[in-house]
């Protein structure tokens, strides 16, 4: 049995080494993806194009508009006296926000100490609109404080609010100075967050797709039937198929981690052996899914389509792009079955937060359970089909 395994293993490694297409797929494509994707995958809210509808024509109105541009968060896309051109700019995409300063704005501020503004946002992308709104709210409230003659005004710099902390409270009013600090990613660099996740996505895709295609290709070519009539036991055959791919997955992961550290300066706070332990266990699940796909597919076309559809579910429910905790609770329960979710959480925690085994043992345990479970199911399914 061991001899058979050794012979088969040598055959698999030889085959992989000879196949230049596969080798390219294994190393060049993931690296290009990692390099490009990491720069693409950002939800960062850039400068919003603001259309100002100034119906007041007063220096006060102009001062408010200047506040917006001075913040650096907004750039003026255009001015008008009526709303129609602004609405058009929103429709065509030339502006993402429109500030309407109503007639009598300056008068209201002086006479009533209260004025009403209108802010219209392009909310196609809801979360970006929300962030833009938060920026606008901050600018407007700061402006209001200044109009009220208050001296206390925090200025935001690099995510930290620097307030005149020792300033005396104005006119006996209690002052609460709020400072904010962003932990683990103080520069709010998207790439630090995305690179570890994309890395996991890549080894999942490669591991699952390679396994599925590798076996289905033998099926399509008829060589699988030939193997079935030899005395090689299915377990030996599966082990010979999976072991090389498991090793490749780990090598791939190592190269990815290196790129993450060197190119993207992702901090390596935690233990690398812990990380690779996680990767080894995680790959069991990824390869298991590939094995399962090969049992339900007759052609490479089907295998590819099934893998892709599964990957999509995997990725969307993994927290890679959108936080799992934002999902409805029933989706969160289903997501527990997604090995990718646990591994992404683990990689981010270990690399960025320096989490140790005491912090991530839950993820590790989940990975171990899911990995062995999926692999066992896939092997059972394969045997049933092969028999």
């Amino acid at each position, binding site marked *: 049995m061991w001899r058979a395994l050794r012979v088969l293993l040598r055959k698999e490694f030889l085959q992989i080494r000879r196949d230049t*297409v596969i080798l390219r797929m294994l190393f060049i494509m993931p690296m290009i993806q990692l390099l*490009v994707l990491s720069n*693409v995958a950002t*939800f*960062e809210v*850039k400068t919003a194009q603001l259309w100002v509808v100034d119906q007041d024509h007063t220096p006060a109105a102009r001062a408010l508009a200047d506040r917006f541009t001075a913040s650096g968060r907004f750039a003026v896309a255009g001015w008008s006296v009526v709303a129609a051109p602004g609405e058009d700019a*929103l*429709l*065509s995409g030339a502006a993402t926000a429109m500030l309407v300063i109503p007639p009598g704005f300056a008068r209201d501020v002086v006479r009533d*100490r*209260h004025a*009403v*503004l209108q*802010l*219209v946002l*392009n*909310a*196609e*992308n*809801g979360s970006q*609109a*929300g*962030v833009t709104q938060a920026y606008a709210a901050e600018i*407007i*409230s700061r*402006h*209001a*404080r200044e109009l*009220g003659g208050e001296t206390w005004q925090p200025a935001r710099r690099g*995510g930290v609010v620097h307030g005149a*902390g020792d300033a005396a409270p104005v006119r*006996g*009013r*209690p*002052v*609460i*100075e709020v400072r*904010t600090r*962003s*932990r*683990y990613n103080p520069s*709010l660099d*998207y790439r630090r*967050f995305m690179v570890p996740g994309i890395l996991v996505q890549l080894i999942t895709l490669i591991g699952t797709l390679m396994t599925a295609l590798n076996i289905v290709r033998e099926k399509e070519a008829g060589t699988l039937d030939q193997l079935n009539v030899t005395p090689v036991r299915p377990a030996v055959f599966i082990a010979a198929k999976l072991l090389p791919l498991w090793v490749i997955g780990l090598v791939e992961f190592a190269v990815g981690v290196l790129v993450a550290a060197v190119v993207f300066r992702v901090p390596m706070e935690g233990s690398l052996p812990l990380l690779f332990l996680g990767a080894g266990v995680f790959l069991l699940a990824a390869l298991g899914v590939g094995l399962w796909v090969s049992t339900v597919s007759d052609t490479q*076309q089907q295998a*590819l*389509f099934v893998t*892709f559809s599964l990957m*999509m579910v995997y990725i969307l429910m993994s927290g890679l792009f*959108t936080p799992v*905790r*934002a*999902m*409805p609770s029933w*989706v969160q329960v289903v997501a527990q079955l997604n090995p990718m979710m646990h591994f992404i959480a683990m990689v981010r*925690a270990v690399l960025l*937060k320096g*989490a140790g085994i*005491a*912090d991530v043992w839950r993820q590790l345990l989940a990975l171990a359970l899911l990995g062995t479970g999926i692999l066992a199911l896939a092997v059972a399914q394969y045997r049933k089909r092969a028999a």
Partner: protein
Amino acid sequence: MSRRGGAWQALMAFMRKEVRHLLRDRRTLAILLLLPLAQLLLFGFAVRTDITSVRVGVVAPAPDAAAAALRARFEHGGRFLLLPPIATAAALEPLLRAGRVDVGVVLEPAMAASLAAGQAVRVLVVADAVDPNTGTMMQNYASAVLRDWQASLGAAPGAVTLETRVRMRFNPTLESVNLFVPGLIALILTMVTSLMTAISLSREKEQGTFELLLVSPLHPWQIIIGKVLPYLALAMANVVTVLLAAWLVFGVPFRGSVVLLLAASMLFALVGLAVGVLIAAVTSSQLAAMLAALGGMMLPNTMLSGLIFPVASMPRPLQFVTGIVPARWFIEIVRGIMLKGVGVSLLWPQLSVLLLMLVVLLALAIRRTSVRLS
């Protein structure tokens, strides 16, 4: 019968065969028709960006009335999950690292006394910002609670209030599904057109059946059309079912013209098919065709199109690259029609780009195919 009529008949016969071929493969067909719907449901239900249960830990070295008042504010803040009090800032750290706390609010000792004395009080808001967007959002939520609290403690005389009425245009409820459905249509169309045609054509090449077709009296263009049209029909069927489901299940709005939407989908599907034919022409195996379709079409159409990540947030050079990604233009068109209700008068630039792409790709595909065939 005229020559032209004969060609038409041969094409029809060939297409009938191809359709039957596609329909016979029940499993692939079921996958192609049902999976897009499953994906839509997933997008609609699972993809959200707004966290509604931010886990807040209040660090109060000396619990007093002010700390209790603040805790009550968080408890009734709607989107917060208040954790048991944390005694020291040092105890907050491991909780943040293990991901059990999202936001820590660190208070000064004896806050109530300081406030009563009219002294300035410092509050530190620490957020887990591994995810910059979520981290900032949670920070903003917590800061808003603190601002409200401060305001409730009494406004200074003579303070000015600027009331802002916010109107969210095109997607007032901020549903992510409204944003994602147009992109999902692009993704499904790419998959069914580029990926499937590239693979099915190169499969025939691999198995040698393509050569058989070539010695038949069919013209190469008839073969290509016959191969491609069933996929076009399938792609359009996908568009219709996904749109119907989006409308029925999620109430995604259709503010513009449905006819224009379908026409644009057809145009985009044709671009995808042209890419598929081109890929099949230049590759020699299914695997190579698959990889080319994935790397050349699927990935750019997913990642560089604005489907998930806004194009405007990408680095400048990459924004230029998105110009050659068909889905980028198509997604702008579909979002424009569905969410904004705009028509051809505003969408003609995007439509012309797609049309131009189609012409260029078709010319290339025809040339490469005929070179190969001669």
